[in-house]
């Protein structure tokens, strides 16, 4: 009973908070903090309950699927919920005291931006939680739209011409993506009369429309995930937003649409997942890793490096499809590959948020994020530098870190499957990420007479450090999240089907 209540609270509290911050704009920071604390407690209760009693499921309003909407907390959902909660708590703490708007010049802008920041951040969180918990494809669509709209507004919150242009570019991709997804969903409904993931899985017939629907849904979600070659909008959007907004955008937003893809291909239509489709998705992921890393190597601005690194890191997530999807889903290594993707998504989320917050602090200190102007910052701000290096370790996949666990699991799956191409991609991606992350670290560590820097409080510096430590801890104590992830995972059901 406690678990069910906690589930409802996790889904509804951010929405209530968003409304409250609109009503009491001046106290937005305080309300957001209170909401974040309550959601964290509810989430903790929910995790304990699920760890003891297994998957918790509720039918909203007592209406069963297909008419009603089912909310379910399984291991995968809890893992992603926990990641968003950690990142959101960090971002909300970081943005306290009007930090978010202070990076923007001009007093008028400051007022508008600080007023808009809190409701948008909480709406983003509400959308994420709705997507992670929902079992209904149309409900997920509504969540996805809410997420997109909040994210676009956060990109544009600075009010500068570049950030509005970035938001506009992003918006065009997102609008097209959501239409494709909606069309796919309507075709699925027309064929099977239900949008519940489990009922679609249990459908007895496979209509021709299913293939079209799966293609449309996948294409729409790829546009929103910014997978290569649809990545063009991501770097300007993520690098032009203020630091706390960038952290949310880069760490959380692409994960939501990837999460839907994961649910869709592994839980709704695993029977449609043939090897060609899975390899196609994996191939796009591999190209994203290579292209994103090479682009990150060429950038001279720290935030653009971090943003292109997101393009590359999203690619790793898609390697789960050729390694665990299709014919491989019944193989013993599928569990490892599937868990690896979740581990990677979570450790990347934590590390990337830490990196963007570090970049934000450095920008406060020196007033810009050009690499050549950041020399000597390691001496001025050792704590932030330490956090950045820890986060970089996770992204490169050095032990001990969550990123290492993810890469290790994925590599072992690739070896077991005998698909050496993915091993090559994984190793090359790791080396490339070491190269592009070494550049900013080398600049920061360069010994040089200290430039005049603005003092940044240690309290703010501690926030990215805690996030980076959490990403490291995920590797040190990987057993607990690994066990949690296995609760209600899809292969048990698809194994029975064989």
């Amino acid at each position, binding site marked *: 009973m406690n678990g069910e209540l906690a589930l409802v609270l996790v889904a509804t509290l951010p929405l209530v908070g968003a409304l409250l911050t609109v009503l009491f704009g001046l106290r937005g920071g305080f309300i957001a903090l209170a909401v974040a604390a309550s959601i964290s407690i509810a989430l903790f209760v929910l995790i304990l309950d699920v760890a003891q009693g297994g998957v918790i499921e509720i039918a909203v309003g007592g209406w069963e699927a*297909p*008419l009603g909407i089912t909310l379910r907390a399984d291991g995968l959902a809890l893992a992603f919920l926990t990641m968003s909660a950690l990142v959101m708590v960090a971002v909300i703490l970081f943005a306290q005291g009007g930090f978010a708007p202070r990076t923007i010049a001009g007093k008028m802008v400051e007022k508008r931006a600080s007023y808009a920041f809190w409701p948008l951040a909480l709406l983003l969180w509400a959308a994420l939680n709705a997507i992670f918990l929902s079992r209904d494809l*149309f409900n997920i*669509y*509504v969540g996805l*739209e809410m997420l*997109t*709209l909040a994210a*676009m*507004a956060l990109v*544009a919150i600075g*009010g*500068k*011409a*570049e950030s*509005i*242009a970035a*938001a*506009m*570019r992003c*918006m*065009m991709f997102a*609008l*097209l993506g*959501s*239409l494709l997804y*909606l*069309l796919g969903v*309507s*075709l699925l*409904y*027309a064929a099977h*009369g239900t949008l519940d993931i489990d009922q679609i899985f249990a459908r007895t017939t496979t209509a021709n429309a299913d293939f079209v629907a799966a293609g449309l849904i996948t294409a729409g979600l790829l546009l929103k995930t910014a997978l290569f070659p649809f990545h*063009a909008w991501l770097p*300007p959007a993520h690098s032009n937003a203020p630091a706390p907004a960038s952290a949310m955008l880069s760490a959380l937003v692409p994960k939501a649409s990837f999460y839907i893809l994961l649910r869709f291909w592994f839980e709704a239509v695993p029977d449609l997942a043939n090897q060609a489709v899975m390899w196609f998705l994996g191939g796009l992921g591999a190209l994203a890793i290579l292209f994103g890393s090479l682009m990150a190597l060429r950038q*001279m*601005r720290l935030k653009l490096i971090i943003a292109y690194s997101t393009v590359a890191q999203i690619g790793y997530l898609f390697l789960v499809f050729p390694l665990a999807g299709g014919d491989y889903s019944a193989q013993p290594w599928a569990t490892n590959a599937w868990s690896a993707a979740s581990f990677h998504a979570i450790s990347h989320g934590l590390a990337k948020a830490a990196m963007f917050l570090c970049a934000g602090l450095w920008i406060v200190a020196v007033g810009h994020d*050009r690499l050549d102007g950041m020399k000597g910052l390691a001496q001025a701000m050792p704590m932030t530098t330490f956090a950045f290096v820890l986060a970089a370790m996770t992204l490169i996949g050095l032990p001990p870190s969550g990123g290492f666990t993810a890469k290790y699991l994925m590599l072992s799956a690739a070896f077991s499957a005998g698909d050496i191409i993915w091993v090559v991609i994984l190793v090359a991606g790791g080396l490339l990420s070491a190269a592009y992350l070494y550049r900013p670290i080398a600049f920061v560590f360069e010994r040089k007479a200290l430039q005049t820097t603005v003092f940044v409080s240690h309290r703010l510096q501690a926030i990215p450090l805690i996030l980076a430590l959490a990403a490291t801890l995920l590797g040190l104590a990987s057993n607990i999240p690994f066990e949690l992830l296995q609760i209600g995972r899809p292969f048990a059901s698809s194994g029975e089907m064989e």
Partner: protein
Amino acid sequence: MITSAMIFGLCGAAVIGIGLYGFVIHRNLLRRVLAFNVIGSGIFLLFGAMGYRSPILGADPVPQALIITGIVVALSATALAVALVVAYARATGQSTLPEDGAEHKTEDKADER
């Protein structure tokens, strides 16, 4: 035999096609937002037609409920998109986005200064 549902469905598909054409062909941002709405209307029409069951049963109400939700979502998206178009026009005086790459060049120049 062509049923009325099929005619509605085909019309929906045609509207989606027109909208998609407009979305791809125009670079003016407002026109693109309008094209998005045309595609959306086509999808709603198609979805509504799919809800048709038989002359006796009539229409399945679930697609109608979903369409209404979809319209609300499309309306909010349009509102945000138009607000962005207006803000962009105010900030730059332009109604189109710069070509890919052009934006990066201006950024680089700004960095060099």
